[in-house]
C-alpha cells in the first residue's frame, strides 16, 4: 500500500509534467495554476481532517504571491528557490503569530476568524498605492540557480518546479498524516478531552497543522504569482479562500492526492464552464458541487476507494 501510493504519486507527477510540457501553452498554464491551488488545498485538507475548516487560506496564498512579486520587482531577486524560501519563512512567521490566537478556536469561530485575518490583509493591500492598490502589480520572470529562461521558458520552469513541489510535498504530507502528529488530527476531531488525558497537547497538534497549512498555501501563492506574472489583493479576498474550500470538498480528505486531482478538475471545469456560459459559469460550478455533496459526500476520492474495494473483493 505504502510503496504503491508513492509510486502512484510519482507517476502522476511525471504524467502531469510530461503532459504539461507537451500541451498547448494555455493548458499547461492552467495545469500550473492547478498545482499551485492544489498545494493550498492540501494544507487545508490537513486542517479539515482535524475538524477545522479555514475560510482564510487566501491570506497565506496572497502572502506567498506578494512575496514573490515584491522580491522580483523591488529587490531584483528572481531565483525561484530563494523566492520560495522567503515566502515560506514569511508565511510561517505570520502563521506562528496568528495561530497563537486562532488555534484556540473551533468550528464556525475558527472559520470566521481565519477569514477575518485574510480580509485584514485584503484591506491593507487595497490601500497600498505602492503595491498597485486593487490592480496589484506584475511579477518578473523567475530564474533558477543563475539560469534565466526568458519569457517563453519561464512558464515551463515554473511548471517543472510546481510539479516537483507537488510530488515531494505530497509525499511528505502523506508521511506526516501517517505519523503520530499528523494522525493526531483525527484524534482532535474525534475527542479533544481524551487526547488531553493521554497527555497530548491539542493546541500543539493544531498549531503545527496550521503552520504547515500556511506554508503550503504560501508556496501555492508563489507558484501562481510566478506563472501568471501578476498579483492582486483578490488573492486574499474571501471568495478565493472559499474556492479552496470548494476544491477540498470536491476532492475529499481521504488521501493527499485528492486535493491535487480536484484542483486540476476544478480548473478544467471552471475553464469549460466559463467558455460555454460566460455569464452563468458560477452556476455550473454550484451544481457540480451540489452533485458531489449529494452523491459523494466524501468527495471524488471516494470513487477511487470504491474501485479499490471492488478490486480487493475480487482478489479475496
Amino acid at each position: 500500500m505504502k510503496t504503491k501510493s508513492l509510486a502512484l504519486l510519482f507517476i502522476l507527477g511525471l504524467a502531469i509534467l510530461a503532459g504539461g510540457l507537451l500541451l498547448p501553452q494555455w493548458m499547461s498554464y492552467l495545469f500550473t495554476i492547478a498545482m499551485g491551488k492544489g498545494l493550498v488545498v492540501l494544507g487545508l485538507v490537513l486542517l479539515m481532517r482535524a475538524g477545522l475548516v479555514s475560510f482564510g487560506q487566501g491570506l497565506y496564498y496572497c502572502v506567498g504571491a506578494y512575496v514573490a512579486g515584491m522580491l522580483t520587482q523591488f529587490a531584483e531577486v528572481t531565483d525561484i528557490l530563494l523566492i520560495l524560501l522567503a515566502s515560506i519563512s514569511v508565511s510561517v512567521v505570520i502563521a506562528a503569530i496568528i495561530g497563537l490566537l486562532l488555534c484556540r478556536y473551533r468550528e464556525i469561530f475558527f472559520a470566521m476568524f481565519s477569514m477575518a485575518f485574510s480580509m485584514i490583509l485584503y484591506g491593507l493591500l487595497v490601500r497600498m498605492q505602492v503595491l498597485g492598490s486593487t490592480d496589484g502589480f506584475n511579477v518578473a520572470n523567475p530564474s533558477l540557480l543563475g539560469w534565466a529562461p526568458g519569457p517563453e521558458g519561464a512558464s515551463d520552469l515554473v511548471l517543472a518546479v510546481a510539479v516537483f513541489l507537488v510530488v515531494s510535498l505530497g509525499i511528505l504530507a502523506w508521511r506526516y498524516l501517517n505519523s503520530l502528529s499528523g494522525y493526531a488530527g483525527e484524534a482532535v476531531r474525534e475527542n479533544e478531552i481524551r487526547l488531553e488525558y493521554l497527555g497530548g497537547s491539542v493546541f500543539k497538534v493544531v498549531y503545527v497543522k496550521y503552520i504547515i497549512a500556511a506554508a503550503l498555501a504560501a508556496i501555492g501563492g508563489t507558484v501562481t504569482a510566478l506563472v501568471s506574472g501578476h498579483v492582486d489583493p483578490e488573492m486574499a479576498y474571501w471568495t478565493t479562500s472559499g474556492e479552496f474550500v470548494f476544491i477540498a470538498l470536491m476532492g475529499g480528505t481521504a488521501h493527499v492526492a485528492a486535493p491535487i486531482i480536484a484542483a486540476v478538475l476544478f480548473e478544467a471545469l471552471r475553464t469549460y464552464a466559463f467558455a460555454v456560459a460566460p455569464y452563468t459559469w458560477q452556476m455550473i460550478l454550484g451544481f457540480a458541487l451540489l452533485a458531489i455533496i449529494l452523491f459523494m459526500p466524501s468527495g471524488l476520492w471516494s470513487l477511487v476507494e470504491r474501485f479499490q474495494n471492488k478490486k480487493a473483493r475480487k482478489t479475496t
Partner: protein
Amino acid sequence: MSALLKTVNLERTFGAVTAATDINVELNSGEIVGVIGSNGAGKTTFINMVTGYIQPSGGDILVRGESIIGKSPREVSLAGVGRSFQVAQLFQELTVLDNMLIAFGFSVDRKLSFLNPLRSAEKIEKAQAVLREYEIEQYTDEVVSTLPQGVRKLLDIAMAMLSNPGLMLLDEPTSGVAIEDKFTLMDTVMAAVRKSDAATMFVEHDMEVVLRYADRVLAFYDGRVLADGPTQKVLSDPKVQELVVGHHLDLSDSAPATTKESGHA
C-alpha cells in the same frame, strides 16, 4: 513520605448546588477503593477535581505532596493520575487499533514524531498485546462507535492505564454493562491494576462488585464523605445502609450478598 493523594477541605459549588464540601481523603499506593453514593452525591465531581477537569471552589489537592490546583487535565495526567469516564471517552470513528496507537504515541512514547509511521509492525504488536491483556483483541479492526459498551469501557481503561499512572480513577467502569459481564470486566481491569501497583478508586453502584474488589470504601452523601474505611465496616454501617445503599445488606456470607442496585437506573 507524603501520601499519593491527599485532599484538604476540598469544596466545589455549582451555583447554589454544593457538589462537594469538606472532603478530606488520603490514599496510598496499592490501595483499591470503592466509591459509593447515590446519584448526584458528588462522586464524579470528586474525580473531575482530582484530574483537573474542573477546579475546586476551595481546599487543596496534593499528588505526592504537590498541589495540582490550577493544573489542566493534561498536566495532571502527566503527573501520573489516570482516569476513565462514566461514558467512555474514545476516538469514536477510529478503529480500536488506531485508538490504541494514538494512546501509545502520546502517553508512552511521548514524542510528537512527524515522519515516523504510526502503524509500524512493532507498534501494532505492542498495541495488540495490550488489547489481548484486556481481552478485546478480537475487536482490533472494528470502529469504536460500533462496539458494545463493555468493550468501549475496557478500551477506555486500557488506554488510560498505558502510561502506568500511580493513581487510577475509574468512574463507573461497569455502568452500561450487562450484569452477567460485570465481574468478567472487573476481573480483567483489576488484574491490570494490581500488576501496576497503582492506587485505584472505582465508582460503583453495585454493592456486590464493591464487596468483591474493594479493600476500602468511600461513601459519599450529598457532597460529603459520609464514611471512609475497610469495606466490610463501611458497608455494615447503618447510616451508610440507610443513606447510600438504600436497604439492608447481608454481609454474613463470604459469597457476595444478594443486593439490588442502589436505587439507580
